Structure formats: C-alpha cells, structure tokens
C-alpha cells in the first residue's frame, strides 16, 4: 500500500509544510487535507468533545476528510496549552471511528532536529542527515519569506487601486513557492514577487485607520476560522497589523520570552500561558504606537487568552484604545461578526474624526 501523508490546515502554511514533506519523503504521496469548508467543521464537531476549543474540531474535520481521501499517515503538532494534548485524543477518536492509519505527533519541547530525523527515517525516508537539515532550513526560510510578504499584504491590501491585484499576485507567489528546490531558487522567487507586490499601486493615506490583531494563533492564522476577518477589515480600508505568525511562533518566541514579559510591563509579572503573554505585550505596544483599535480573537474557552483579557481591559482604560473581543465556536454566526465589525469600524472612524477637530 502506498503511503499517503496528510496534515491539518492552518492558513497558507500548507504550502511550505507540503514542500518539506515532499523533500523528505521522495517515494510517498503528500496530500494536504481538502480545503476547510463548513462540512469540515460539521464533521469535526460531530465527533469532538463538547466544549473543547474550536481548532480541535477543525483539525479533526481535516483528518476525517483526509482519511476519506485515502491518507494513511497523519501528522499533528503540539504546543503549550491544550493543543499539546490534541494528538492523543484525536488519534483515539479516529481509531474508534474505525480508520486505520499511523499517527505522528511533533511536540514542542520534546522535539529537536535529531528526533525529527529519526521519526522520518522510521517512516521510510531515505535521505541523509545533511540533506535533511538543508531542507528543514530551506523551509524555515520559506516560511519567513512567506510571512514577510503576507505582512506587507495585510498592511496594504485595503488600499489597492486595482481590485484583487494583491490577491492575484499572492496566489501566484504561493504557486511559485511549490516549485522551489534550493535556497537559490527560493531567493529568486522571493525577490521577484517582492518587487511585483511592491510595484502594485496603493492609495494609502498617512493617517489611515490602523488596527492590530492579537489573540490565539489558530483563530488568527486560519482565515476560515475567523470568518475572513482580515479581508473584511480590508474592505473598510483599514491597515491590519498582526505579529503572530509561524515565523514568530517557531523561531522567535522562545528566544524573546523575557523580552515579551518586559514589554508587557506593569500588566504582567509572570507568563500567563501559551500566547496570552504575547497578546498583552503586543496590545500594549500597539496602544503606545497610536493604533486606532485592537481586535482580540480566540476560540471559545481558550484559557490563555481568557487569562489575558483582564489585562487587555486595563490597557483599554489606561491608553483609551478600544479593543474588540471575538470568541469563535462552531456555532458562531457570520452575520453577528460582520455587524460587530461594522459597529467597531464606525466607532473608531468617529473617534478619529473627533480627534482631528
């Protein structure tokens, strides 16, 4: 039987992950889960525990759809909060559903290059260690480049002169990334598309509305789970800043943990778990930077982000900056979110108006 490897979605990161797996497993088929739809969420919630956070449900839905499409090796990661325990429960649920598959879990803290390499070898990869390190580094760089371009897009897409021009180039860029084979070709692709996207005409006033996005990583990075909030904000001609990216989480977070705590200043004495500390620190920085507002997103019941909310409320009071709180679940209605966003936009718009008068 052929080995078909699959993994759950998060934003556009399926592109680099797919590349990495393709490099490592030459003779396996790599198949990212089918794109997230309403059906994915329905499938996931049907078999999930009641009040688990919603990323669990999305991931489970992804897995079920991938298995139905023939995948037989599933990959799941694990982080600092409940996320760390996702793998074991999902494996159990899928086994109980009668699927036959292999389950690979990559836990932060327990994993290093050597253990990763060993896992890959056990799965039947035949590449040498040197090659393995090379490809891991290449994909890390790819993620960084991707985040850089997407950061620029978020800041400017609301002001594009020609409609959908950013989206088209972005799509082209993601397609081009899939052809990358070496650092050199990656550099060429990155350079080409940076110029291309930089050359797109934008009509961005210097005093445009600026909003920061903070919160839980999955809700931030997976547009389906936040009902395409970034696109919605772009429609209102708002520049969106979001600092939580895969680059930050993978390569910077552990190194900067003390710095982040310092940035949070008087609001925090200790780390409050997972990304809660980042939410507080970033909100404070955004408030000091004169942003018009911050939007805080989280899945329902996300403990680290709920922990961060009293501090965020204090930041609102101290800096007079509005923060809009969103909590997503499998039942959240899109209309409700749109209404709240619209009201938020009206509010920051009026505040900005009065400030100038």
């Amino acid at each position, binding site marked *: 039987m052929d080995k078909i490897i699959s993994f759950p979605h998060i934003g556009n990161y399926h592109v680099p992950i797919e590349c990495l797996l393709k490099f490592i497993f030459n003779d396996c088929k790599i198949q990212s889960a089918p794109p997230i739809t309403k059906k994915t969420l329905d499938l996931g919630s049907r078999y999930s525990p009641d009040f688990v956070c919603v990323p669990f449900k999305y991931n489970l839905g992804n897995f079920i759809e991938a298995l139905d499409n023939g995948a037989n090796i599933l990959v799941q990661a694990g982080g600092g909060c409940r996320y760390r325990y996702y793998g*074991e429960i999902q494996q159990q649920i899928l086994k109980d559903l009668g699927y036959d598959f292999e389950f690979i879990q990559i836990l932060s803290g327990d994993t290093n290059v050597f253990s990763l390499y060993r896992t890959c070898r056990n799965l039947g990869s035949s590449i040498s260690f040197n090659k393995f390190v090379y490809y891991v580094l290449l994909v890390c760089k790819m993620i960084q480049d991707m985040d850089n371009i997407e950061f620029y897009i978020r800041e400017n897409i609301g002001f594009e002169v020609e409609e959908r021009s950013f989206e088209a180039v972005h799509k082209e860029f993601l397609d081009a990334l899939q052809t990358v084979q070496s650092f050199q070709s990656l550099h060429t692709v990155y350079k080409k598309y940076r110029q291309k996207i930089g050359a797109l005409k934008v009509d961005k006033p210097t005093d445009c509305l600026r909003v920061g996005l903070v919160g839980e990583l999955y809700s931030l990075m997976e547009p389906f789970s936040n009902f395409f909030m970034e696109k919605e904000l772009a429609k209102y001609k708002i520049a969106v800043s979001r600092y939580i990216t895969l680059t930050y989480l993978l390569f910077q977070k552990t190194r900067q943990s003390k710095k982040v705590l310092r940035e949070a200043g008087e609001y925090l004495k200790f780390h409050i778990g997972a990304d809660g500390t980042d939410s507080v620190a970033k909100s404070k920085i955004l408030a000091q930077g004169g942003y018009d507002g911050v939007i805080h997103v989280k899945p329902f019941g996300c*403990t680290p982000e709920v*922990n961060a909310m009293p501090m965020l409320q204090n930041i609102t009071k101290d800096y007079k900056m509005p923060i809009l709180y969103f909590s997503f679940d499998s039942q959240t209605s899109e209309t409700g979110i749109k209404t709240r966003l619209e009201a938020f936009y009206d509010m920051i718009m009026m505040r900005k108006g009065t400030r100038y008068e």
Partner: protein
Amino acid sequence: MIMTIGLPRALLYYKYRYLWEIFFKELGCRVIVSEKSSSQTLADGSRFSIDECCLSSKMYMGHVYSLIGHCDYVLVLRVENFGRKEKVCVKFNAMYDIVKNTFKDVPLLCYDVDVEKGNSELKGFLQMGKVLGKSCRQSFFAYQKGKRAQMIQDKQKAEKQLKLLENQEQLKILLVTHPYNIYDKLIGFPIVKLVEESGGMPVYADACDSTSCRKESEGISKSLNWTFNKELVGAMNLCKEKVDGIILITAFPCGPDSLVNELILRRFKHIPISHIILDELTGEAGLQTRIESFMDIIKEKKKKRVVNG
C-alpha cells in the same frame, strides 16, 4: 504588629491547606480563611471575572473579593509546573496577574512554583518569609513543619480511603474531579449529598496517594502532562476494580478536563460512568434526577450480578 494573611478557600487551598496554615502560624501571623462558598461568593466572582472563565476560577475570585479589607495580605499561588511533564492548567499560570489586574490596590503575597526554571516551592516560601520580615532560617523551619503536617494529613486521608474501598456493603461511587470542585460547598457538596441520600458511598479520587497515581496514569495515557489530571486518571485506574460506578464532574468550561474526560470515557469501557458538567446555573432538580437514575442503574446491575452468582 501581627500580620493577617487571608487564604481564599478555593482552587489549591484544598491541596495545600495545612502547609499554608501552619507555615504562617509558625511565622507568627494570623491566618483567616474566607467563608465557605455561597451563592453570594459566586455572584461576586462572576462579576469580577471574564464570563468565559471556568466555574472554579470564578469561585476563586469571589473568595478573594470577600477577603479584601479583612487582612494585610491575600495569598495567591502561581504554579507553572512541578517539573518536566508535570504541568498544570494555564489558569494557574496567570492567577496572580489576573487577581492583580482585577483588584488593583490589594496587597498580594505570592509564591511561584516553576521547577523547570528553578523556582521550587521552598524558594517561594523563603521569599514569602522575607516579605513578611522573617529570616530564612525561620521560614525554612516553618516550611518544613507545614510540609510534614500536610504529608501526614494526606497519608491519613489515603488510608481512610483504602479502608472505605474495602467496605462491601454499600455501593461505592468514585467521584472523579479536582479537589477544589468536590470539596466546595456550592459545586461538589450537593453531589456528595445526593449520592449519600440515594444509598451510595462517595469515594474521592483525589484522596488516593498522588505519587502512585501519577505513575499509574502512564498506563492509560503516555502524553498526558497535567499533574492534577494525571492524579485523577491514575486514581481511577487504581480504584476501578473496587468501585461500582464513577461520576465525572467537570466545571464548565474546564480546559484540561474537556479533553481528558473524553479520553476517560473512551478508555474506561467496563464500568458505568456518569459525566456531569456544572456551571453557574445548575439546577438542583436536574442533578437529582441524573444521580438517582445513575444509582438505580448501578443497584440493578449489582443485584443481577449477585443473582447470577
């Protein structure tokens, strides 16, 4: 001047009660413990918490609020981990900062347990002693004394539990939940009362010896790394042969429990389990119906077993 230290009767109070009380008494402080939970406590707690917080932490805020103005310091414990793979719910990571940000001008006494980064419990207690103006030596002996008292109490509890488990006459119901839920007057007590009223004998999962429970839990789940849940899962595995039924109690929306209970329900197949989720609005009548019917099922089951020999 005698210092007064306030202990909120919630969360980890039920785990460290003797350690805390004796430590502060040894240092010459007066200790007051907040009153047992009432609906007023919960109402206050909900008022000062984010509405998505779990029931237990809302209760905690209520208890902290009730102590304000009655003591010089409120003790707030912050735990990150007890070592590698011995983590706790992130709520405990943030407890200090949440209280600090909610009640701004309340003096807090805090100790931090983060063994991975080198902040042991002892270090935390010595620092607390320093804040109270005591020497390291004094605090060290007070800590030792408190720790010993806590250990003796835990041991006694475990022994008593073992004796209960040998009892053959009554139906033994294992209550699996965190100590701060089951011993709370408002959350767990009604359930204990109902179990007793319908002829069952409650046995507490948290009373079992924690070290052996943690080891035992590895047989059920290898990647589980929340210490408190490990203890509960291990205790379930240790007791499952000796009890007639299990009641899982969860405070809505408890993060770790949401996943671990799913695992329990899927991996403990041969024993009746009732899963009760509690929130602020739980009605007594609904609870009564569920527990009574659960007890009836177990009674019938046992009768059948006796008849069939």
